[in-house]
């Protein structure tokens, strides 16, 4: 299964999906100029990954998606929700699939946004606190 690596820019997050190394991370600020195009690539990869998991017995170990946003705009919110819904679908077939939602310990809005995403996408999140400097607690 191919990797998906997208470098962080001033307005778009880093994406690092690497099944061989068990790393599935999105991190940074999300307000890319073309939000649909940016997330279509990610969701397209997720569809391929889902097909790969269904047809391959090679993959072992948990699939933990780490969503670690500093900020996302309203358009990105729609596509992040779509992403989470896809992960929820993936979870039906691959039990040890999860979403870890990262937030700064004093960022209640980001925590609440995660709770809303989890509820709407119908998948429980694990919530990971970071200290205000961005380090995981």
């Amino acid at each position, binding site marked *: 299964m191919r990797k998906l690596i997208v470098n962080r820019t*001033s*307005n778009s997050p880093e994406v690092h999906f690497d099944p061989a190394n068990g790393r599935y991370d999105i991190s940074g600020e999300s*307000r890319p*100029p073309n939000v*649909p195009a940016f997330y279509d690539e990610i969701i397209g990869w997720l569809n391929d990954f889902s097909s790969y998991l269904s047809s391959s017995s090679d993959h072992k170990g948990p699939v933990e998606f780490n969503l670690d946003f500093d*900020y996302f*705009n*309203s*358009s990105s*919110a*729609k596509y992040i*929700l779509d992403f989470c819904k896809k992960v929820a679908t993936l979870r039906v077939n691959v039990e040890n699939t999860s979403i870890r939602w990262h937030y700064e310990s*004093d*960022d*209640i*809005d980001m925590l609440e946004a995660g709770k*809303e995403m989890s509820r*709407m996408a119908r998948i429980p999140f694990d919530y990971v606190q970071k200290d*205000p400097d961005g380090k995981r607690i």
Partner: protein
Amino acid sequence: MNESSEFLNYTGPVDYNKIDFLLNDLKESREFLNIDKDTGKRVYAIVVECLENIIKYSIKDFAGKMNPEPAITVLKQSDIITIKAGNAIEADETGEIIHNINRINSQDDNALNAMFEKTINKSFEKDDKGAGLGLMLMKLKSGNNISFNVTRLDSHYNYLELIISVNEYLV
């Protein structure tokens, strides 16, 4: 005596590079760094939506032909931070935008959250321009209604200014 301080003041064309530049200016301004972090994140979110609205709704070939150009200011007076963002829009689009703002303003938080949820779960068409999510977020983040002024420029264009106030949390 009420002191006021300016976080951001810009008039001119707006594109995505300019948004990056303006947001950096905002984040680095001494005034912005002096407000509490929670309020700062809300102000930042509203400013992003305002600037992106300018790109989505501005008349593409209007800037440069006539004044006024797009503009954004962020000012703090006492414990109120006021974001004003304006741009020329098609006269034909004005009614729908105003209708959307009034509809959002008429909702309480629960109803507005339900409206946001309904919209975010819909499939977007190519020309939806966010389907009003940005305006809903402005009210939800600020906790206040969105005020606006519409000025007629000519028979084809109006100038729309949005005014959003955020109350700084007192620690």
